[in-house]
Protein backbone atom coordinates (compact mmCIF):
# COMPACT_ATOMS: atom_id res chain seq x y z
CA UNK A 1 0.00 0.00 0.00
CA UNK A 2 1.28 3.46 -0.87
CA UNK A 3 2.24 5.74 2.01
CA UNK A 4 -0.61 8.09 1.02
CA UNK A 5 -3.23 5.41 1.40
CA UNK A 6 -4.70 4.08 4.57
CA UNK A 7 -7.16 1.23 4.77
CA UNK A 8 -9.92 1.70 7.30
CA UNK A 9 -10.68 -1.53 9.17
CA UNK A 10 -14.45 -1.68 9.44
CA UNK A 11 -16.99 -4.48 9.83
CA UNK A 12 -19.09 -5.53 6.83
CA UNK A 13 -17.79 -3.10 4.19
CA UNK A 14 -20.38 -2.33 1.54
CA UNK A 15 -17.97 -0.20 -0.49
CA UNK A 16 -14.57 -1.67 -1.25
CA UNK A 17 -11.91 -0.09 -3.46
CA UNK A 18 -8.72 -2.07 -3.96
CA UNK A 19 -5.62 -0.48 -5.55
CA UNK A 20 -7.87 1.66 -7.73
CA UNK A 21 -6.33 4.08 -10.21
CA UNK A 22 -8.05 6.18 -12.84
CA UNK A 23 -6.51 7.99 -15.81
CA UNK A 24 -8.23 10.93 -17.45
CA UNK A 25 -6.84 11.61 -20.95
CA UNK A 26 -3.48 9.99 -20.13
CA UNK A 27 -3.18 11.88 -16.84
CA UNK A 28 -3.47 9.96 -13.59
CA UNK A 29 -6.40 11.50 -11.72
CA UNK A 30 -6.56 8.94 -8.89
CA UNK A 31 -3.84 6.60 -7.72
CA UNK A 32 -3.63 3.62 -5.37
CA UNK A 33 -7.00 4.13 -3.70
CA UNK A 34 -7.85 1.59 -0.98
CA UNK A 35 -11.04 2.31 0.88
CA UNK A 36 -13.55 0.29 2.90
CA UNK A 37 -16.83 1.86 4.00
CA UNK A 38 -19.10 -0.03 6.38
CA UNK A 39 -22.89 -0.11 6.56
CA UNK A 40 -24.42 2.81 8.44
CA UNK A 41 -21.41 5.12 8.10
CA UNK A 42 -21.79 8.81 7.22
CA UNK A 43 -18.63 9.68 5.31
CA UNK A 44 -17.56 13.14 4.15
CA UNK A 45 -15.27 13.12 1.12
CA UNK A 46 -13.20 16.27 1.17
CA UNK A 47 -10.34 17.69 -0.84
CA UNK A 48 -9.30 20.52 -3.13
CA UNK A 49 -10.97 21.24 -6.48
CA UNK A 50 -9.66 18.90 -9.15
CA UNK A 51 -8.39 16.47 -6.51
CA UNK A 52 -10.59 13.62 -7.75
CA UNK A 53 -13.56 13.64 -5.34
CA UNK A 54 -16.22 13.53 -8.04
CA UNK A 55 -14.18 10.99 -10.02
CA UNK A 56 -14.12 8.78 -6.93
CA UNK A 57 -17.91 9.04 -6.60
CA UNK A 58 -18.38 8.22 -10.29
CA UNK A 59 -16.17 5.14 -9.90
CA UNK A 60 -18.32 3.97 -6.97
CA UNK A 61 -21.48 4.54 -9.00
CA UNK A 62 -20.09 2.69 -12.01
CA UNK A 63 -20.30 5.79 -14.22
CA UNK A 64 -16.52 5.43 -14.76
CA UNK A 65 -14.43 2.27 -15.04
CA UNK A 66 -11.14 2.20 -13.11
CA UNK A 67 -7.95 2.04 -15.16
CA UNK A 68 -6.48 -0.26 -12.53
CA UNK A 69 -7.78 -2.04 -9.45
CA UNK A 70 -11.24 -3.15 -8.42
CA UNK A 71 -14.39 -1.51 -7.07
CA UNK A 72 -16.98 -3.68 -5.29
CA UNK A 73 -20.32 -2.36 -4.04
CA UNK A 74 -22.37 -4.79 -1.93
CA UNK A 75 -19.78 -7.37 -3.02
CA UNK A 76 -20.65 -6.90 -6.70
CA UNK A 77 -19.54 -4.71 -9.61
CA UNK A 78 -20.75 -1.09 -9.42
CA UNK A 79 -24.08 -0.60 -11.17
CA UNK A 80 -25.25 -4.15 -10.47
CA UNK A 81 -27.75 -2.99 -7.83
CA UNK A 82 -29.24 0.33 -8.93
CA UNK A 83 -32.18 0.07 -6.52
CA UNK A 84 -29.86 -0.27 -3.51
CA UNK A 85 -27.93 2.91 -4.37
CA UNK A 86 -29.30 6.45 -4.43
CA UNK A 87 -27.34 9.11 -6.29
CA UNK A 88 -27.75 12.83 -5.69
CA UNK A 89 -25.86 15.08 -8.14
CA UNK A 90 -25.49 18.82 -7.64
CA UNK A 91 -28.79 20.56 -8.29
CA UNK A 92 -26.98 22.96 -10.64
CA UNK A 93 -26.40 20.02 -13.04
CA UNK A 94 -30.11 19.89 -13.79
CA UNK A 95 -32.22 22.43 -15.65
CA UNK A 96 -34.71 24.21 -13.36
CA UNK A 97 -36.82 25.08 -16.43
CA UNK A 98 -37.44 21.41 -17.26
CA UNK A 99 -41.17 20.76 -17.79
CA UNK A 100 -41.79 18.60 -14.72
CA UNK A 101 -43.38 19.05 -11.31
CA UNK A 102 -41.50 18.14 -8.14
CA UNK A 103 -43.51 14.92 -7.86
CA UNK A 104 -42.60 13.93 -11.42
CA UNK A 105 -38.90 14.58 -10.73
CA UNK A 106 -39.08 12.36 -7.63
CA UNK A 107 -40.86 9.65 -9.66
CA UNK A 108 -37.95 9.69 -12.13
CA UNK A 109 -36.06 7.86 -9.40
CA UNK A 110 -38.09 4.76 -10.30
CA UNK A 111 -36.89 4.73 -13.92
CA UNK A 112 -34.84 1.67 -14.67
CA UNK A 113 -33.86 -0.36 -17.68
CA UNK A 114 -31.18 -2.98 -17.77
CA UNK A 115 -31.23 -3.24 -21.54
CA UNK A 116 -32.69 -1.39 -24.50
CA UNK A 117 -35.27 -4.09 -25.14
CA UNK A 118 -36.06 -4.94 -21.51
CA UNK A 119 -39.62 -4.62 -20.20
CA UNK A 120 -40.74 -1.03 -19.55
CA UNK A 121 -43.35 0.40 -17.24
CA UNK A 122 -46.11 2.50 -18.79
CA UNK A 123 -46.23 6.25 -19.22
CA UNK A 124 -48.67 6.61 -16.30
CA UNK A 125 -47.55 6.10 -12.71
CA UNK A 126 -49.48 3.69 -10.51
CA UNK A 127 -51.01 4.54 -7.13
CA UNK A 128 -48.24 2.56 -5.40
CA UNK A 129 -45.55 4.50 -7.25
CA UNK A 130 -47.17 7.80 -6.25
CA UNK A 131 -47.29 6.62 -2.64
CA UNK A 132 -43.58 5.82 -2.83
CA UNK A 133 -42.93 9.33 -4.15
CA UNK A 134 -45.02 10.85 -1.36
CA UNK A 135 -43.05 8.89 1.24
CA UNK A 136 -39.71 9.98 -0.27
CA UNK A 137 -40.84 13.61 -0.43
CA UNK A 138 -41.88 13.46 3.22
CA UNK A 139 -38.48 12.06 4.22
CA UNK A 140 -36.75 14.88 2.34
CA UNK A 141 -39.09 17.55 3.71
CA UNK A 142 -40.57 18.56 0.35
CA UNK A 143 -43.99 16.91 0.54
CA UNK A 144 -45.76 20.28 0.33
CA UNK A 145 -43.98 21.15 -2.93
CA UNK A 146 -45.25 18.21 -5.05
CA UNK A 147 -47.16 20.25 -7.62
CA UNK A 148 -44.58 23.04 -7.96
CA UNK A 149 -42.02 23.29 -10.77
CA UNK A 150 -38.29 23.30 -10.00
CA UNK A 151 -37.84 26.88 -11.21
CA UNK A 152 -40.25 28.00 -8.47
CA UNK A 153 -37.98 26.58 -5.73
CA UNK A 154 -34.85 27.78 -3.94
CA UNK A 155 -31.51 26.02 -4.47
CA UNK A 156 -31.85 24.22 -1.14
CA UNK A 157 -35.36 23.01 -1.96
CA UNK A 158 -34.22 21.80 -5.40
CA UNK A 159 -31.38 19.87 -3.79
CA UNK A 160 -33.82 18.22 -1.37
CA UNK A 161 -36.05 17.28 -4.30
CA UNK A 162 -33.07 15.45 -5.83
CA UNK A 163 -32.49 13.75 -2.47
CA UNK A 164 -36.14 12.65 -2.47
CA UNK A 165 -35.67 11.28 -6.02
CA UNK A 166 -32.71 9.22 -4.74
CA UNK A 167 -34.66 8.05 -1.67
CA UNK A 168 -37.71 6.77 -3.57
CA UNK A 169 -36.24 3.26 -3.93
CA UNK A 170 -35.28 3.31 -0.23
CA UNK A 171 -31.59 2.76 -1.01
CA UNK A 172 -29.11 1.32 1.48
CA UNK A 173 -26.35 3.56 0.12
CA UNK A 174 -26.76 7.26 -0.63
CA UNK A 175 -24.05 9.05 -2.63
CA UNK A 176 -24.18 12.84 -2.76
CA UNK A 177 -21.94 15.07 -4.88
CA UNK A 178 -21.50 18.42 -3.14
CA UNK A 179 -25.13 18.76 -2.05
CA UNK A 180 -24.32 21.84 0.04
CA UNK A 181 -22.71 23.88 -2.76
CA UNK A 182 -24.41 27.20 -3.54
CA UNK A 183 -26.99 26.63 -0.82
CA UNK A 184 -27.76 29.21 1.87
CA UNK A 185 -27.08 28.29 5.54
CA UNK A 186 -30.75 27.48 6.28
CA UNK A 187 -30.93 25.25 3.22
CA UNK A 188 -27.72 23.48 4.26
CA UNK A 189 -29.11 22.83 7.71
CA UNK A 190 -32.30 21.38 6.20
CA UNK A 191 -30.32 19.06 3.92
CA UNK A 192 -28.18 17.88 6.84
CA UNK A 193 -31.35 17.29 8.88
CA UNK A 194 -32.66 15.13 6.06
CA UNK A 195 -29.45 13.11 5.89
CA UNK A 196 -28.94 12.67 9.63
CA UNK A 197 -32.59 11.66 9.97
CA UNK A 198 -32.19 8.65 7.66
CA UNK A 199 -32.38 5.10 8.93
CA UNK A 200 -29.23 4.18 10.90
CA UNK A 201 -28.55 1.35 8.43
CA UNK A 202 -28.36 3.77 5.49
CA UNK A 203 -24.79 4.51 4.48
CA UNK A 204 -24.16 8.08 3.32
CA UNK A 205 -21.13 9.16 1.30
CA UNK A 206 -21.10 12.88 0.66
CA UNK A 207 -18.62 15.07 -1.18
CA UNK A 208 -18.37 18.33 0.70
CA UNK A 209 -16.22 21.42 0.62
CA UNK A 210 -17.49 22.64 3.94
CA UNK A 211 -16.35 20.22 6.62
CA UNK A 212 -17.28 22.67 9.39
CA UNK A 213 -21.03 22.34 8.92
CA UNK A 214 -20.93 18.57 8.35
CA UNK A 215 -18.49 17.82 11.21
CA UNK A 216 -21.23 16.98 13.71
CA UNK A 217 -23.00 14.65 11.32
CA UNK A 218 -20.20 12.54 9.86
CA UNK A 219 -18.70 9.39 11.31
CA UNK A 220 -15.66 9.36 9.04
CA UNK A 221 -13.68 11.45 6.60
CA UNK A 222 -11.93 10.58 3.36
CA UNK A 223 -9.43 13.20 2.18
CA UNK A 224 -8.84 13.00 -1.58
CA UNK A 225 -6.17 14.66 -3.65
CA UNK A 226 -5.10 12.09 -6.28
CA UNK A 227 -4.50 9.70 -3.35
CA UNK A 228 -6.93 9.09 -0.51
CA UNK A 229 -6.61 9.02 3.26
CA UNK A 230 -9.45 7.73 5.41
CA UNK A 231 -10.19 8.35 9.07
CA UNK A 232 -12.90 6.56 11.00
CA UNK A 233 -13.20 9.09 13.83
CA UNK A 234 -14.23 12.13 11.80
CA UNK A 235 -11.02 13.93 12.72
CA UNK A 236 -8.85 15.86 10.31
CA UNK A 237 -5.25 14.79 10.73
CA UNK A 238 -2.06 16.69 9.79
CA UNK A 239 -1.41 13.95 7.20
CA UNK A 240 -4.78 14.69 5.58
CA UNK A 241 -4.09 18.42 5.50
CA UNK A 242 -0.68 17.68 4.02
CA UNK A 243 -2.28 15.49 1.32
CA UNK A 244 -4.90 18.08 0.46
CA UNK A 245 -3.05 21.37 0.73
CA UNK A 246 0.68 20.58 1.16
CA UNK A 247 3.04 21.55 3.98
CA UNK A 248 3.11 25.21 4.94
CA UNK A 249 5.52 26.81 7.43
CA UNK A 250 4.30 28.58 10.56
CA UNK A 251 3.51 32.20 9.76
CA UNK A 252 2.31 31.40 6.27
CA UNK A 253 -1.36 32.48 5.81
CA UNK A 254 -2.28 29.00 4.51
CA UNK A 255 -0.75 27.43 7.63
CA UNK A 256 -2.92 29.64 9.86
CA UNK A 257 -5.98 28.70 7.84
CA UNK A 258 -5.22 24.99 8.12
CA UNK A 259 -4.61 25.30 11.87
CA UNK A 260 -7.98 26.99 12.16
CA UNK A 261 -9.62 24.10 10.29
CA UNK A 262 -8.19 21.57 12.75
CA UNK A 263 -9.10 23.66 15.79
CA UNK A 264 -12.68 24.23 14.70
CA UNK A 265 -13.30 20.49 14.33
CA UNK A 266 -15.46 19.30 17.21
CA UNK A 267 -13.80 16.95 19.70
CA UNK A 268 -16.65 14.47 19.46
CA UNK A 269 -19.51 13.78 17.13
CA UNK A 270 -22.76 15.08 18.45
CA UNK A 271 -25.94 13.47 17.19
CA UNK A 272 -28.67 15.84 16.06
CA UNK A 273 -31.45 16.39 18.57
CA UNK A 274 -34.20 15.31 16.17
CA UNK A 275 -35.69 18.77 15.70
CA UNK A 276 -37.01 19.17 12.19
CA UNK A 277 -37.34 22.87 11.47
CA UNK A 278 -37.37 22.02 7.75
CA UNK A 279 -40.35 19.68 7.92
CA UNK A 280 -38.38 16.45 7.49
CA UNK A 281 -39.82 13.15 8.59
CA UNK A 282 -37.03 11.25 10.37
CA UNK A 283 -36.78 7.50 9.94
CA UNK A 284 -37.35 5.38 12.99
CA UNK A 285 -34.02 3.95 14.15
Amino acid at each position, binding site marked *: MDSHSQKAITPEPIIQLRNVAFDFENTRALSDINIDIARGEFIAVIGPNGGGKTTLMRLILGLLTPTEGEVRIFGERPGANPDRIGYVPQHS*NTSPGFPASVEQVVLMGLAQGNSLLGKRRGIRYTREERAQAEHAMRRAGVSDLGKRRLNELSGGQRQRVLIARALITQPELLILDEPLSNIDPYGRQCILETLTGLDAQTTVVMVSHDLGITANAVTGIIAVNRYALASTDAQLTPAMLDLMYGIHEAGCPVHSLLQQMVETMPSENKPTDGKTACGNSHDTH
Partner: protein
Amino acid sequence: MTLTELLQQNFMQHALLASLLVSVTCGVIGALVVVNRLTFMAGGIAHTAYGGVGLAFFLGAPVLPTAGAFTAGAAMLLGTLTLKKRERTDTLIGVIWAAGMAFGIIMINLTPGYNVGLMSYLFGSILTVPASDLWLMLGIDVVIVSLTLYFYRDILSFSFDPDFARSRGIPVQWLYFMILIMVAEAVVMMIQVVGLILVIALLTLPPYLAERHTKSLAGLMVASGIWSFVFCLGGLWVAYQFDLSSGASIIATACTLYLAVAGGQKLWNLISRQEKTAA
Protein backbone atom coordinates in the same frame (compact mmCIF):
# COMPACT_ATOMS: atom_id res chain seq x y z
CA MET B 1 -62.06 30.45 -55.37
CA THR B 2 -64.11 30.08 -52.18
CA LEU B 3 -62.74 28.37 -49.06
CA THR B 4 -65.01 25.35 -49.65
CA GLU B 5 -63.80 25.01 -53.23
CA LEU B 6 -60.22 25.38 -52.06
CA LEU B 7 -60.63 22.63 -49.47
CA GLN B 8 -62.01 20.33 -52.17
CA GLN B 9 -58.78 20.62 -54.14
CA ASN B 10 -56.57 17.55 -53.95
CA PHE B 11 -53.36 19.54 -53.36
CA MET B 12 -54.91 21.42 -50.44
CA GLN B 13 -56.21 18.23 -48.81
CA HIS B 14 -52.70 16.79 -49.11
CA ALA B 15 -51.24 19.96 -47.64
CA LEU B 16 -53.60 19.85 -44.64
CA LEU B 17 -52.90 16.18 -44.06
CA ALA B 18 -49.14 16.79 -44.34
CA SER B 19 -49.50 19.64 -41.81
CA LEU B 20 -51.24 17.32 -39.37
CA LEU B 21 -48.73 14.49 -39.81
CA VAL B 22 -45.74 16.82 -39.51
CA SER B 23 -47.22 18.48 -36.42
CA VAL B 24 -47.34 15.15 -34.57
CA THR B 25 -43.63 14.54 -35.15
CA CYS B 26 -42.81 18.17 -34.67
CA GLY B 27 -44.44 18.19 -31.24
CA VAL B 28 -42.63 15.08 -30.01
CA ILE B 29 -39.21 15.75 -31.53
CA GLY B 30 -39.31 19.52 -30.99
CA ALA B 31 -39.91 18.97 -27.27
CA LEU B 32 -37.02 16.49 -27.10
CA VAL B 33 -34.71 18.85 -29.02
CA VAL B 34 -35.48 21.75 -26.70
CA VAL B 35 -35.27 19.92 -23.35
CA ASN B 36 -32.08 18.09 -24.40
CA ARG B 37 -30.58 21.30 -25.80
CA LEU B 38 -30.04 19.70 -29.18
CA THR B 39 -31.08 22.72 -31.28
CA PHE B 40 -27.68 23.20 -32.90
CA MET B 41 -27.35 19.45 -33.37
CA ALA B 42 -30.77 19.37 -35.07
CA GLY B 43 -29.66 22.28 -37.28
CA GLY B 44 -26.57 20.31 -38.28
CA ILE B 45 -28.63 17.21 -39.04
CA ALA B 46 -31.13 19.27 -41.07
CA HIS B 47 -28.46 20.78 -43.27
CA THR B 48 -26.69 17.44 -43.66
CA ALA B 49 -29.97 16.18 -45.13
CA TYR B 50 -29.11 18.21 -48.23
CA GLY B 51 -26.37 15.66 -48.90
CA GLY B 52 -29.09 12.98 -48.96
CA VAL B 53 -31.23 15.05 -51.32
CA GLY B 54 -28.24 15.53 -53.65
CA LEU B 55 -27.44 11.83 -53.51
CA ALA B 56 -31.05 10.95 -54.39
CA PHE B 57 -30.95 13.28 -57.43
CA PHE B 58 -27.62 11.82 -58.53
CA LEU B 59 -28.79 8.24 -58.21
CA GLY B 60 -32.26 8.96 -59.54
CA ALA B 61 -33.65 7.40 -56.35
CA PRO B 62 -36.77 8.53 -54.40
CA VAL B 63 -35.78 11.57 -52.37
CA LEU B 64 -37.42 11.01 -48.98
CA PRO B 65 -36.21 7.42 -48.35
CA THR B 66 -32.70 8.21 -49.65
CA ALA B 67 -32.44 11.41 -47.61
CA GLY B 68 -33.86 9.56 -44.59
CA ALA B 69 -31.19 6.86 -44.73
CA PHE B 70 -28.37 9.35 -45.47
CA THR B 71 -29.42 11.70 -42.64
CA ALA B 72 -29.78 8.83 -40.16
CA GLY B 73 -26.19 7.81 -41.01
CA ALA B 74 -25.00 11.39 -40.55
CA ALA B 75 -26.83 11.59 -37.20
CA MET B 76 -25.12 8.36 -36.04
CA LEU B 77 -21.75 9.78 -37.11
CA LEU B 78 -22.45 13.04 -35.27
CA GLY B 79 -23.56 11.13 -32.20
CA THR B 80 -20.42 8.97 -32.17
CA LEU B 81 -18.07 11.92 -32.67
CA THR B 82 -19.75 14.14 -30.07
CA LEU B 83 -19.85 11.34 -27.49
CA LYS B 84 -16.09 10.94 -27.76
CA LYS B 85 -15.24 14.65 -27.93
CA ARG B 86 -17.94 16.40 -25.93
CA GLU B 87 -15.94 19.60 -25.62
CA ARG B 88 -15.73 19.77 -29.43
CA THR B 89 -19.44 19.28 -30.05
CA ASP B 90 -20.02 22.71 -31.64
CA THR B 91 -17.03 22.40 -33.96
CA LEU B 92 -17.93 18.86 -35.03
CA ILE B 93 -21.54 19.82 -35.75
CA GLY B 94 -20.27 22.77 -37.84
CA VAL B 95 -17.98 20.48 -39.84
CA ILE B 96 -20.65 17.84 -40.53
CA TRP B 97 -23.20 20.59 -41.31
CA ALA B 98 -20.94 22.12 -43.99
CA ALA B 99 -19.72 18.76 -45.30
CA GLY B 100 -23.27 17.50 -45.81
CA MET B 101 -24.29 20.63 -47.70
CA ALA B 102 -21.12 20.54 -49.84
CA PHE B 103 -21.67 16.85 -50.63
CA GLY B 104 -25.23 17.60 -51.72
CA ILE B 105 -24.16 20.47 -53.99
CA ILE B 106 -21.41 18.36 -55.60
CA MET B 107 -23.85 15.50 -56.19
CA ILE B 108 -26.25 17.91 -57.88
CA ASN B 109 -23.41 19.38 -59.95
CA LEU B 110 -22.62 15.86 -61.13
CA THR B 111 -26.26 15.15 -61.97
CA PRO B 112 -27.01 15.80 -65.66
CA GLY B 113 -29.69 18.38 -66.50
CA TYR B 114 -31.16 21.25 -64.49
CA ASN B 115 -32.99 20.26 -61.32
CA VAL B 116 -35.92 22.63 -60.98
CA GLY B 117 -37.39 20.96 -57.90
CA LEU B 118 -34.30 21.51 -55.80
CA MET B 119 -35.50 24.76 -54.27
CA SER B 120 -38.50 22.98 -52.77
CA TYR B 121 -36.17 20.97 -50.52
CA LEU B 122 -34.46 24.14 -49.31
CA PHE B 123 -37.61 26.15 -48.61
CA GLY B 124 -40.39 23.56 -48.57
CA SER B 125 -43.31 22.85 -50.82
CA ILE B 126 -46.24 21.60 -48.80
CA LEU B 127 -48.64 22.20 -51.71
CA THR B 128 -46.95 19.55 -53.85
CA VAL B 129 -46.75 16.65 -51.39
CA PRO B 130 -47.65 13.42 -53.24
CA ALA B 131 -49.81 10.71 -51.66
CA SER B 132 -46.83 8.33 -51.43
CA ASP B 133 -44.97 10.81 -49.22
CA LEU B 134 -48.04 11.14 -46.99
CA TRP B 135 -47.93 7.38 -46.35
CA LEU B 136 -44.21 7.65 -45.57
CA MET B 137 -44.93 10.53 -43.17
CA LEU B 138 -47.61 8.47 -41.45
CA GLY B 139 -45.13 5.61 -41.06
CA ILE B 140 -42.53 7.92 -39.51
CA ASP B 141 -45.19 9.33 -37.16
CA VAL B 142 -46.19 5.86 -35.99
CA VAL B 143 -42.58 4.78 -35.38
CA ILE B 144 -41.59 7.99 -33.55
CA VAL B 145 -44.71 8.07 -31.34
CA SER B 146 -44.45 4.33 -30.55
CA LEU B 147 -40.75 4.57 -29.59
CA THR B 148 -41.40 7.65 -27.47
CA LEU B 149 -44.29 6.00 -25.63
CA TYR B 150 -42.36 2.77 -25.05
CA PHE B 151 -39.22 4.50 -23.77
CA TYR B 152 -41.03 7.47 -22.20
CA ARG B 153 -39.76 7.00 -18.63
CA ASP B 154 -36.21 6.38 -19.83
CA ILE B 155 -36.32 9.40 -22.14
CA LEU B 156 -37.76 11.57 -19.36
CA SER B 157 -35.08 10.55 -16.87
CA PHE B 158 -32.30 10.83 -19.48
CA SER B 159 -33.46 14.25 -20.65
CA PHE B 160 -33.61 15.66 -17.12
CA ASP B 161 -30.37 14.17 -15.77
CA PRO B 162 -28.28 11.78 -17.94
CA ASP B 163 -25.85 10.92 -15.11
CA PHE B 164 -28.65 9.92 -12.76
CA ALA B 165 -30.28 7.91 -15.56
CA ARG B 166 -27.02 6.01 -16.07
CA SER B 167 -26.78 5.34 -12.36
CA ARG B 168 -30.25 3.71 -12.62
CA GLY B 169 -28.98 1.36 -15.32
CA ILE B 170 -30.72 3.13 -18.21
CA PRO B 171 -28.80 2.61 -21.49
CA VAL B 172 -28.30 6.32 -22.09
CA GLN B 173 -25.97 5.98 -25.10
CA TRP B 174 -28.56 3.93 -26.97
CA LEU B 175 -31.22 6.46 -26.05
CA TYR B 176 -29.02 9.31 -27.28
CA PHE B 177 -28.54 7.61 -30.66
CA MET B 178 -32.23 6.75 -30.86
CA ILE B 179 -33.20 10.38 -30.24
CA LEU B 180 -30.70 11.59 -32.88
CA ILE B 181 -32.07 9.15 -35.47
CA MET B 182 -35.62 10.24 -34.64
CA VAL B 183 -34.52 13.87 -35.09
CA ALA B 184 -32.99 12.91 -38.48
CA GLU B 185 -36.21 11.28 -39.70
CA ALA B 186 -38.33 14.14 -38.38
CA VAL B 187 -36.13 16.63 -40.20
CA VAL B 188 -36.41 14.74 -43.49
CA MET B 189 -40.18 14.62 -43.06
CA MET B 190 -40.36 18.35 -42.34
CA ILE B 191 -38.27 19.24 -45.37
CA GLN B 192 -41.44 18.74 -47.45
CA VAL B 193 -43.28 21.33 -45.39
CA VAL B 194 -40.85 24.14 -44.59
CA GLY B 195 -37.57 23.13 -46.25
CA LEU B 196 -34.34 22.18 -44.56
CA ILE B 197 -33.25 25.79 -43.98
CA LEU B 198 -36.39 26.56 -41.96
CA VAL B 199 -36.76 23.24 -40.15
CA ILE B 200 -35.17 24.50 -36.93
CA ALA B 201 -37.77 27.23 -36.51
CA LEU B 202 -40.65 24.74 -36.71
CA LEU B 203 -38.88 22.38 -34.30
CA THR B 204 -38.06 24.97 -31.64
CA LEU B 205 -40.74 27.69 -31.72
CA PRO B 206 -43.68 25.45 -30.71
CA PRO B 207 -41.91 24.07 -27.57
CA TYR B 208 -40.73 27.58 -26.62
CA LEU B 209 -44.33 28.73 -26.66
CA ALA B 210 -45.73 25.56 -25.10
CA GLU B 211 -43.30 25.36 -22.17
CA ARG B 212 -44.97 28.41 -20.62
CA HIS B 213 -48.09 26.45 -19.81
CA THR B 214 -47.04 22.80 -19.46
CA LYS B 215 -45.88 20.87 -16.42
CA SER B 216 -44.76 17.63 -18.01
CA LEU B 217 -42.69 16.43 -20.96
CA ALA B 218 -45.71 14.61 -22.42
CA GLY B 219 -47.77 17.81 -22.02
CA LEU B 220 -45.02 19.77 -23.77
CA MET B 221 -45.06 17.32 -26.68
CA VAL B 222 -48.85 17.55 -27.10
CA ALA B 223 -48.96 21.35 -26.73
CA SER B 224 -46.03 21.75 -29.16
CA GLY B 225 -47.83 19.59 -31.68
CA ILE B 226 -50.94 21.76 -31.40
CA TRP B 227 -48.93 24.97 -31.81
CA SER B 228 -47.15 23.44 -34.78
CA PHE B 229 -50.47 22.60 -36.46
CA VAL B 230 -51.70 26.15 -35.78
CA PHE B 231 -48.54 27.55 -37.41
CA CYS B 232 -48.95 25.30 -40.45
CA LEU B 233 -52.63 26.21 -40.94
CA GLY B 234 -51.94 29.90 -40.37
CA GLY B 235 -48.99 29.81 -42.76
CA LEU B 236 -51.03 28.05 -45.45
CA TRP B 237 -53.74 30.69 -45.15
CA VAL B 238 -51.18 33.52 -45.36
CA ALA B 239 -49.51 31.87 -48.37
CA TYR B 240 -52.86 31.51 -50.14
CA GLN B 241 -54.09 35.04 -49.31
CA PHE B 242 -50.92 36.88 -50.35
CA ASP B 243 -49.59 34.40 -52.92
CA LEU B 244 -46.38 33.72 -50.98
CA SER B 245 -44.08 30.76 -50.52
CA SER B 246 -45.81 28.29 -48.15
CA GLY B 247 -42.67 27.27 -46.16
CA ALA B 248 -41.61 30.84 -45.47
CA SER B 249 -45.22 31.82 -44.65
CA ILE B 250 -45.48 29.04 -42.05
CA ILE B 251 -42.27 30.18 -40.34
CA ALA B 252 -43.26 33.86 -40.57
CA THR B 253 -46.60 33.00 -38.94
CA ALA B 254 -44.79 31.04 -36.22
CA CYS B 255 -42.37 33.90 -35.52
CA THR B 256 -45.16 36.50 -35.46
CA LEU B 257 -47.29 34.42 -33.10
CA TYR B 258 -44.28 33.70 -30.89
CA LEU B 259 -43.43 37.40 -30.60
CA ALA B 260 -47.10 38.28 -29.99
CA VAL B 261 -47.53 35.67 -27.22
CA ALA B 262 -44.13 36.30 -25.60
CA GLY B 263 -44.61 40.08 -25.83
CA GLY B 264 -48.19 39.82 -24.52
CA GLN B 265 -47.01 37.74 -21.57
CA LYS B 266 -44.26 40.25 -20.72
CA LEU B 267 -46.76 43.12 -20.91
CA TRP B 268 -49.21 41.20 -18.71
CA ASN B 269 -46.47 40.52 -16.13
CA LEU B 270 -45.48 44.21 -16.14
CA ILE B 271 -49.08 45.35 -15.61
CA SER B 272 -49.62 42.78 -12.85
CA ARG B 273 -46.45 43.89 -11.07
CA GLN B 274 -47.45 47.57 -11.30
CA GLU B 275 -50.91 46.78 -9.92
CA LYS B 276 -49.35 44.90 -7.00
CA THR B 277 -46.97 47.79 -6.29
CA ALA B 278 -49.86 50.27 -6.40
CA ALA B 279 -51.90 48.11 -4.00
